[in-house]
């Protein structure tokens, strides 16, 4: 742990020298930018931050930061991040993944991380497609989107990650757009500062497999109302919105799960007692 939190840091202090392998124009570049700006603003030393991810284009992000990182297996980032945060409550833990990683294969951990409400921040870079495996539909893809795996579309309605988060107990819910890195940095900052499990869906276009997402720039707009602290109201709002309102949508004060650390740990030898006859 480090006492240098007062040192003034720049976004570039949080960027590694590794050149991203993302396609030119990929939205994830801006997520990286927002993330490093947010961290600089927070002033947390990079060594006290851990960025945990799964597998996908988006999940490449940890190595592009100058923080501790874990590029785990597909879909399990939240579980890994939860273990880390409970074991090391002193760290700032950010779990970052994609819509396939987070909502398809990782859906169960999403549900239960929301419910558990450990103090970490979950960022999903949602491009409504599996980028890394070259263009298959994800849980947020619209039903008509044509692809090799689902010719003519899946016929399956996308689901609402933000509503799922609310229904399962997330303590902070927001939507951001990677094309607005400053606003995204601000939202991420609030997410990190908010106690408990914070979930941020970042719309982050895939220029290669979803070129039509270039439109997003003109579709997004600030959320028309202030964040609520009533999950039922927030859920209803989100279920009926157009999917493009950006901002913090819910701030809760549900009880945060922390390891109930014993103030005064007993020596291990005391555990032997129960076995004596």
């Amino acid at each position, binding site marked *: 742990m*480090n006492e240098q939190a007062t040192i003034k840091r720049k976004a570039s202090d949080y960027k590694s020298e590794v050149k991203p392998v993302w396609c030119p124009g990929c939205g994830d570049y801006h997520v990286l930018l927002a993330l490093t700006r947010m961290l600089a603003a927070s002033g947390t030393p990079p060594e006290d931050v851990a960025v945990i991810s799964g597998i996908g284009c988006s999940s490449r992000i940890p190595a592009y930061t100058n923080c501790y990182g874990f*590029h*785990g297996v597909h879909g*399990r980032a939240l579980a*890994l991040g939860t*273990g880390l945060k*409970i074991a090391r409550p002193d*760290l700032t833990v950010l779990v970052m993944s994609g819509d396939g990683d987070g909502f398809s294969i990782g859906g169960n951990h999403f549900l239960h991380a929301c419910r558990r409400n450990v103090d970490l921040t979950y960022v999903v870079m949602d491009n409504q497609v599996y980028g890394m495996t070259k263009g298959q539909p994800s849980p947020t893809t619209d039903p008509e989107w044509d692809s090799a795996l689902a010719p003519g579309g899946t016929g399956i309605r996308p689901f609402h990650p933000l509503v799922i988060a609310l229904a399962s107990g997330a303590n902070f819910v927001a939507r951001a757009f990677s094309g607005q890195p400053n606003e995204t940095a601000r939202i991420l900052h609030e997410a990190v500062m908010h106690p408990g499990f914070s979930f941020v869906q970042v719309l982050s276009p895939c220029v290669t497999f979803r070129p039509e997402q270039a439109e997003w720039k003109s579709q997004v707009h600030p959320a028309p109302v202030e964040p609520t602290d009533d999950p039922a109201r927030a859920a209803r709002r989100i279920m009926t919105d157009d999917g493009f309102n950006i901002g913090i949508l819910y701030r809760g004060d549900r009880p945060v799960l922390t390891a109930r650390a*014993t103030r005064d740990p007993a020596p291990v030898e005391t555990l032997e007692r129960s*076995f004596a006859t």
Partner: protein
Amino acid sequence: MGRQDDPAAFAATRGRDEDSVSLAILGSGGAGALTTGGLLLEAAARRGLYGMMTRSVGPQIRGGEAAAFLRLATRPVECMADRFDAVVAIDWRRADRFADEIALDAGSLLIGDPGKPGEGTRAGTEAPPPPALTRSGAAVVNVALSDLAATVPGGRENMVALGLAAGLIGLTAEELDGLIERRIGPKGADAVAASRAACALGLDEAGKLPRRFPLPLPADPRGQRWRITGNEATGLGAVEGGVRFAAAYPITPATEVLEWLAPALRKVGGVLVQAEDELASINMIIGASFGGVPAITATSGPGLALMIESLGLAVASEVPIVVVDVMRGGPSTGIPTKSEQSDLNIATLGCHGDAPHLVLAPLSVGDCRFTAGWAVHLAETLQCPAVLLSDQFLGQSSAVIAPPDPAVFATQRKTLPRTIEGYRRYELTQDCISPMALPGTAGGQYTADGLTHAESGLPSSKAGDHRNQLDKRQRKLLEAEYGSLWAEVEGEGDTVLLCWGSLTGAAREAAARLAAAGRPVRLVALRLIAPLKAEALAEVIGDRRVLVVEQTHSGQFLNYLRSAGLLAGAPRSLRRPGPLPIRPGEIEAAVMEWSQS
């Protein structure tokens, strides 16, 4: 398969063991057979005897038939005996369900309440001992436990049975009184009085039995005794080894490891988290350990199967974790409540890609303490996942033993104490252990990765990087120092009894008997399964012939040894899948038979 087909009948041809007495206590739903067994075990422990108790229950969660199998002895015992001296049945109603598991002979006693036609006894209607048990020739003794219990206000049949069983092995009224005081005391004076009276009636009945099996005092009657299960000992060893984080998803027969750890970790300043599934539990411990906190989970076959992908992640990213697999009958859901050694394949070779890791196996209930501690030590020092292969027999048996050895190591993960220039997480080092920076260490930042990576940790698909890291991860295991702990090697002879894990107790007892019979063998019991110490093993085998003993259907252990180029001669294989254990007498007979052929 020959005689292995009916191990009970076979075992019954073996003689009685002089140093121990074996009892089965049975009853149908709610009769209290398990309580009785537990109390008897405790009484024996207080006397300074040794012992072991296993349980067998039907598929019902509650209200099903139950049996407590006990072996009480004047010397340490690590397995059940070949045969039972007596069966004490609170009632015989579903006793046939256990017939497979109860080997009897003409020297055995079948003691129990036969019930009465049409009367309201516990037996409900008349229920004599079933033919499956009586055909052994065991002597039948009818004791009207129910009637006797009814003579005591608040008296229960199972307390009468306790007295009976206690008398059978030579425990005294004073010993039982003390026990009842301690255990029933909290329920009030009336309950204590009722239990004592019921127990006394049982003791009286014992006096009338045609034979008894009194046990003398043990050699060290005042030696300290622990009563402990393998699952508890595993938890204890892990915490002693340094574990302070556990993630849990319950599964039979591993749940007790987790349920023991939950309060224990809290006491010593650690934490246990319940996960949503095994995919989460293994990733949680990887996360905790990445953060520097030694971490564990426990599961059984189906859960291990779900963890396999992420076990490979721990191998590739070099994060130490311990995964306890308390094996049960497989494949698939299999037989959750019975023991088998058939997860050897998945534990050693279950990962995709070349993913060398540690696999260890405790050799007895007590050894669960040591081997769990050693597993943590090895995992931490080698930055590698360790699978600890316990099983239902070790995990759920209640043993009365002298306090087992803890593992005492100066365990130290090779971490990066402070900034160095150009730190590379996966550096190629002399000892193949790359210093690991823990989050919070300035200048140590890196990204752990399951992708093939360069020394820096950055993804690489270069042949050289791939091979270097594969070499390193293989070599760190092969070149590590395991001392003599990798196996127990005992005795001399022209034959090696080669086994692993929980079968060691039975093999050791067989070896002792063979030595006593002038036919000594060498026992080799592997505690370190992977990496396989092939050269050392070849050396302790020498040119002896080898009998490989294991509890699998396909011979997984035999095949595993052969895959390393060992046992090129013509080893014999004594194997059987669960649910029935392989008893010492079977091993003894297999050696004797081989000698004669």
